[in-house]
């Protein structure tokens, strides 16, 4: 964030590798975390439940996907299916009497296993072909969920999530659900940041940047791509379960359709590949855009400026996602995170013009 680096000298490697090596930065992060914790007192329940909580959960989802797409460089266009597996697994486990904590873990593990099986098959191909293979996964999982009544409860069915307790606390009212979502998102964020500063993350980035150079330094590319699929699917599965229990409080197949996969890819690309800040910015941006767009067009429609059908209204956000992805890929491939970084660096050296790197 915004700070001055002058006067900060590290004398130990551990301090140099800290997540926020500069004290001012650390305080700002803590302040943000405090604001997030105090949010139920600060904002109305409408904002908490329909803006803040979904933002947190989708951030966790975007970060899970960003681990695979941003760090390891493997495209995945079926991530909603991974989340669906997590959501359905957790609901069925809780219904079978498994404690919620274990059900969350089980959701992650199941998604990781299936995700890895698909990954192992998909990783024999690269680039566009990998996109096709993951798309196939999306449709296969969708089909299985809809057509196996034991999972979905029937094609048009909605499974309500049962009452659960997390570590003894009931997850019932909005505040408790918000805290669970926030806790999971902070954990995913911390994990993401830690991956980037350890050997595991470096190996993933090495494969993304130059796979042959990674191989001659001792990285087994297939093994690490698979590990990336596994880790990302685990996180995606748990996030799907959190989404089902905290936000939707029910699961239906449409919640995890192909559109959602595209929305997730948009979040990662718009936010910035492989960036933790980008996860937050991307998820926030992609969630807020349809709301703003709908309001804007409704206002314009009401004032007789334009005439637009309901059907068109529903599709406008999708059109906008597509335009956004193309726009960012063309002009700012590193997304909102890079725009934020540029702004920050501009002010860091202000009033001088040039910053390093």
């Amino acid at each position, binding site marked *: 964030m915004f700070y001055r680096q002058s006067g900060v000298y590290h004398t130990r490697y*551990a301090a140099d590798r800290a997540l926020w090596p500069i004290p001012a930065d650390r305080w700002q992060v803590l302040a943000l975390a405090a604001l997030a914790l105090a949010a139920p007192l600060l904002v109305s329940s409408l904002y908490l439940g329909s803006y803040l909580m979904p933002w947190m959960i989708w951030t966790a989802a975007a970060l899970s996907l960003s681990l695979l797409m941003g760090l390891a460089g493997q495209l995945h266009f079926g991530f909603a299916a991974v989340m669906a597996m997590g959501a359905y697994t957790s609901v069925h486990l809780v219904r079978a009497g498994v404690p919620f904590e274990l059900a969350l873990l089980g959701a992650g593990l199941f998604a990781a296993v299936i995700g890895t099986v698909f990954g192992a098959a998909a990783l024999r191909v690269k680039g566009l072909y990998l996109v096709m293979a993951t798309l196939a996964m999306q449709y296969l999982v969708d089909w299985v969920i809809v057509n196996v009544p034991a999972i979905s409860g029937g094609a048009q069915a909605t499974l309500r999530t049962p009452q659960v307790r997390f570590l003894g606390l009931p997850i019932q009212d909005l505040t408790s659900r918000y805290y669970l979502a926030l806790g999971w998102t902070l954990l995913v964020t911390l*994990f993401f940041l830690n991956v980037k500063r*350890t050997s595991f993350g470096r*190996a993933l980035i*090495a494969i993304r940047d130059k796979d042959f150079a990674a191989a001659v330094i001792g990285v087994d590319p297939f093994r690490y791509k698979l590990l990336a699929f596994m880790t990302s699917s685990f996180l995606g599965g748990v996030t799907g379960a959190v989404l089902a229990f905290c936000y939707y409080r029910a699961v239906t197949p449409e919640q995890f359709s192909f559109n959602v996969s595209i929305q997730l890819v948009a979040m990662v690309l718009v936010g910035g590949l492989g960036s933790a800040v980008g996860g937050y910015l991307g998820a926030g941006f992609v969630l807020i855009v349809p709301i703003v767009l709908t309001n804007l067009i409704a206002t314009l429609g009401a004032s007789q400026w334009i005439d637009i059908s309901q059907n068109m209204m529903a599709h406008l956000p999708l059109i906008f996602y597509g335009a956004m992805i193309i726009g960012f890929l063309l002009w700012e491939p590193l997304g909102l995170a890079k725009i934020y970084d540029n702004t920050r660096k501009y002010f860091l050296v202000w009033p001088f013009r040039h910053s390093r790197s």
Partner: protein
Amino acid sequence: MSASENVLQCENVSRWFGGIHALKGVSVSVAQGQIYGLVGPNGSGKTTLVNCITGFYPPQEGRILFEGRQINGMKPYRIAAGGIARTFQNVALFRGMSVLDNILMGRHNFMHPNPLASLFYPWWARREEIQHREKVEEVIDLLQLESVRDEHVDVIPLGLQKRVELARALSAEPRMLVLDEPMAGMNQEEKEYMVRFILDAQESLGLTVLIIEHHMDVITAICDRTLVLNDGMALAEGPPKEAIADPAVVAAYIGRTGDAA
């Protein structure tokens, strides 16, 4: 010289790509601690030979032995774990990382990368990260890269990038170092620095070095022995000055006296 003294032994290595016969039965023996030069005109098979040694593609014929163990047909990451590190003709650094992280990548074989270790960083990964950071700092010190340690690799000049690549290879603690044109595109001063660093590293770490280079002054200055390749075949082998002065070599590089007319 018996096979046991030779760190690297290539026996009748052949490799072809479709109709192109890139290597035709080349044999090389590199003894422990030697700096071995590999020269030849463009397209003579130098890089193909090096790619065979480091496992990019196996030779179709012949054997490659490293410290008495057969390595042809092994995957590159296995060969790397066995103690061979290399650099590339066109710099192959990881462009999304800082100089420091690039060199830390060289420690990959000695670390235990694992998502759970990353999750529990303070208890599980920190000690290892710092332990290897100390090793990497020794290499940074040896190659005088302190000033660019925290820079992104794509913003530093080419000469330094090549040095970072050397640092990455050295931090893997190889017993054999393969350098593919480490001085391509460098000016005289950068070249002299690079030669100094290669000699320093070779001396202080007891390395065996296989080096491809087009600068003949470098080859004659630092190599113990040299193999000249042309058209996939060994043209001459021996101490660099003698190998380069061989009439067949002169002919391959400059053309025969009769051709000029």
